């Protein structure tokens, strides 16, 4: 490795990591000055999922999930996390490949403040009572929501699918919220008139892993709650999830005839928006300004790693229709260079058209994946979002391979993204070129990279909508996970067939 590359790599490291730092800790420093950056946790989009429903008998539906508000300490009182009433949460679908949303599901929340004594919403939960149902009087600050569908071509003003649905309270603990999932979680799954379902509420952050001392070493702890995350997991997240009949998502409004039909692939991403305002002479009432997108998430990995710092704000405000500006970073991603630099492994040279396929155009029909597999959806321009071929049959829950396509399971990532897909391992391998699309580098260690966590230590996913596990209760000690500690950090992290680290 030459010195030039080393220097370059350092520069990349710097730019990447300082982004995370900046997000939480930089302020103009004269004490009278307003903070310059404050982490917008309530509008922070962490993960998006799109897959054909794997709950038995539901494969005529697609499940769309978007997670927000990361790093929720289960013992989050007295300010329990809830959706922000002033944020517009959306899941968007492009079914024509032009990068514009053709269908939008909007979630807007309203909190009824029973105890309105404080601005920050402290002491919001009546801890003397037991909350045993969603309309229990002891649920002190109940939040409800409206879900609306907008169709770009014929229903621009939108149609209310449901309103007045209740968000369950946070999982405070067995004394206040006993039998959480039975009493509060499942009852908050509402049926929709088209046969689908909808849910909004707290869930377990399924994939989160904090690697303990490693975080210490690289200073990422600062992005966690309270400025210092323990070497533990067990955070919660806020989930919106909706299940939609397949034909309500495709461009022809029908169930596609097969995986290579022109209407078989849909693009999916989620966003969070806040209202701008006029600085001077605000017109009438507060919160009436235009919505501005402040967070966006399609594929895992892209926003945080592929997009360089100087475009971060811009990327988060962009629609996929304008993604051409981001294309060069997919063709030559920083992470690939970093892996080459630090692991000393051979990585495919740019331009990385293999990655452009996965993230920005979809995978065309090709000999490697076979004649019936495609996720291609593009008008020739790059548009970054998940691409789901809704005509590829589901893999039943017991047979799902966590590596998706790489594990021979064509129903999984990068065909959409299931909650079961171990996208960390997949993405590490994809970026390292350890896939059949780049045969020269589809060798160990490139095609055996992994984070060593192949299953959530807190337990399995649900086998029914919304699939994600119930939130961790506030009184449960979080589980420590230090698998990477003590590992020889100069070698690439390679995992065995069970996804466990090879030591």
């Amino acid at each position, binding site marked *: 490795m030459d010195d030039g590359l080393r220097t370059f790599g*350092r520069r990349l*490291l710097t*730019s990447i*990591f*300082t982004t995370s730092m*900046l*997000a*939480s800790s930089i302020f*103009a*420093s*004269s004490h009278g*000055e*307003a903070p*310059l950056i*404050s982490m917008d946790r309530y509008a922070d*989009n*962490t*993960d998006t999922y799109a897959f054909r429903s794997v709950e038995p008998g539901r494969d005529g539906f697609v499940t769309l999930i978007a997670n927000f508000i*990361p790093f929720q300490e289960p013992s989050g009182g007295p*300010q329990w996390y809830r959706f922000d009433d*002033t944020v517009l949460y959306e899941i968007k679908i492009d079914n024509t490949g032009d990068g514009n949303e053709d269908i939008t599901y909007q979630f807007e929340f309203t909190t009824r403040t029973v105890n309105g004594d404080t*601005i*920050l919403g*402290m002491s919001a939960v009546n801890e003397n009572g037991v909350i045993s149902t969603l309309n229990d009087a002891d649920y002190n600050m109940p939040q409800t929501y409206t879900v609306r569908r907008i169709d770009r071509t014929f229903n621009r003003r939108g149609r209310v699918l449901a309103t007045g649905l209740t968000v369950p309270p946070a999982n405070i603990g067995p004394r206040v919220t006993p039998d959480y999932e039975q009493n509060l979680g499942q009852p908050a799954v509402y049926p929709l008139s088209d046969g689908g379902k909808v849910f909004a509420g707290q869930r377990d*952050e399924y*994939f989160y892993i904090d*690697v303990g001392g*490693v975080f*210490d070493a*690289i*200073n*990422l*702890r*600062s*992005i966690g*709650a309270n*400025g210092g995350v323990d070497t533990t997991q067990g955070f919660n997240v806020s989930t919106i999830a909706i299940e939609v009949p397949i034909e309500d998502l495709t461009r022809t409004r029908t169930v596609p005839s097969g995986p290579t039909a022109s209407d078989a692939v849909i693009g999916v991403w989620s966003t969070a928006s*806040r*209202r*701008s*305002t*006029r*600085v001077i002479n*605000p017109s009438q009432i*507060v*919160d009436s300004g235009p919505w*501005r997108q*402040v967070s966006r998430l399609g594929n895992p*990995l892209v*926003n945080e*790693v592929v997009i360089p710092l*100087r475009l971060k*704000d*811009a990327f988060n405000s962009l629609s996929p229709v304008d993604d051409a500006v981001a294309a060069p970073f997919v063709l030559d991603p920083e*992470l690939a260079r970093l892996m080459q630099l*630090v*692991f000393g492994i051979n990585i495919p040279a740019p331009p990385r058209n293999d990655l452009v396929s996965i993230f920005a155009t979809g995978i065309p029909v090709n000999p490697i994946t076979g004649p019936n597999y495609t996720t291609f959806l593009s008008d020739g321009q790059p548009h970054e979002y998940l691409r789901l071929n809704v005509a590829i049959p589901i893999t039943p829950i017991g047979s799902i391979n966590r590596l998706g396509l790489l594990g021979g399971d064509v129903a999984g990532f990068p065909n959409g993204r299931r909650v079961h897909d171990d996208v*960390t391992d997949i993405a590490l391998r994809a970026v390292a070129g350890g896939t059949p699309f780049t045969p020269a580098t589809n060798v160990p260690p490139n095609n055996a990279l992994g*984070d060593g966590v192949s299953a959530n230590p807190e337990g399995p996913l649900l086998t029914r909508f919304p699939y994600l596990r119930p939130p961790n209760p506030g009184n449960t000690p979080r589980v420590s996970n230090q698998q*990477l500690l003590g590992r020889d950090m100069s070698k690439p992290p390679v995992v065995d067939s069970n996804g466990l680290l090879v030591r």
Partner: protein
Amino acid sequence: MNIFARWCLVAVISSLGVSCSTKLRTTTDAAEYSDPKFKNAQAEIEREPTSPRGYINLAAFFMKESRRTGDFSLNANAEVAVAKALELAPDDIPARKLEASLHLANHRFTKAVDAALAMKAELPRDSFVYGLLADAYVEIGDYTKAVEAAQTMVDLKPGTASYSRVAQIRSLHGDHQGAIEMFLQAARIADPADKETQSWCLVQLGDEYWKGGKFAEAEKIYDEALQNFPGYFFATVSKGRVRASVGDYETAERLLTEVQARGPNAKAMLMLGDIYELRGEDDKAREQYEKFEAFEKELGNAADHNRLALSLADRGRIDEALAIARKEYEIEPSIYSADLLGWCLYKSGDLADAKKYVLEAMRLNTSDPRILFHAGMIARAEGDKSGGNQLLKSALERNPAFDLLRSRDARSALAESN
């Protein structure tokens, strides 16, 4: 933010681990801080001494610590660390953002504008840059550009940072209700893990109520800020002020003394001086004023010159105050510089110029009772008794305790003319 992505990086970076043998020697005998952010930054510098990253994180830590504790001197450490980062990587954006923030903190407003404009050319959609511009233009008194920058900022990224700037600029333009709405929203959506920012927004909100004379509302908000972030100096000072405003000098004295025990605070010194003066304890008052003067002078260019000059003018040191006021107005012709200059000119007997500047100070329709009081006194001295009295009355109506001593002056001036 994506958790996987973050994790992937962790995996990659963790492999960089190198044994640590060198010790951090960047700051002036930086005390040991137990905060993991400090320790992490230190470890980063040891591990990668040629990377700016550790220095940037160290600077960020000191700047945040300065905000948290009110110890302004910690910014000097931040300056050292940022300079080192920029020496290693002159084009590094995070380092340049910090450098520009430190320009603001140390009242190098023109430099802050230049640095921000240079970054704006590279990052036309980065909200941070517009925040820097809005702050700097407000200080310099270029309000048109400040409004423009804040508008761009909030259009690019609505959130706590942009909403709180919108609130400040609305307040300057006399839109009290609009400012309250924005500070309220800024506080509500601030990161719950960042107690300082949450409580900072609450204190601003409380101050907006205090400015309008709504003392009970203000105090309730200060109490919430203190409950959320116990011991917060900024909230304690404001709570002390509202206690004094309702005549509870004992509690005010206790709170302001408490703050002082933890570190020097200019506002607390001035308010304590005023309380002692009201009580006729002249020696104790003088002691506080002298402490205040020494403190500000020690800050050099980073001092709050307007606050210093105003205090000197009100203690009869007109020539010194006028000299500072003229210089301030020349480099930063803000409404507060204009107000100060007008007031100093009035005190020195130059009524015509005094009127000119105080009118300039009123050009945004800022409903700051201190400016109204100054304008009223100048109008009266000019012979416009009824106009002047009207201004004094509006100052007192807006906030009957806008300043412990000057509100007393306003009342006695009105009493005389009856």
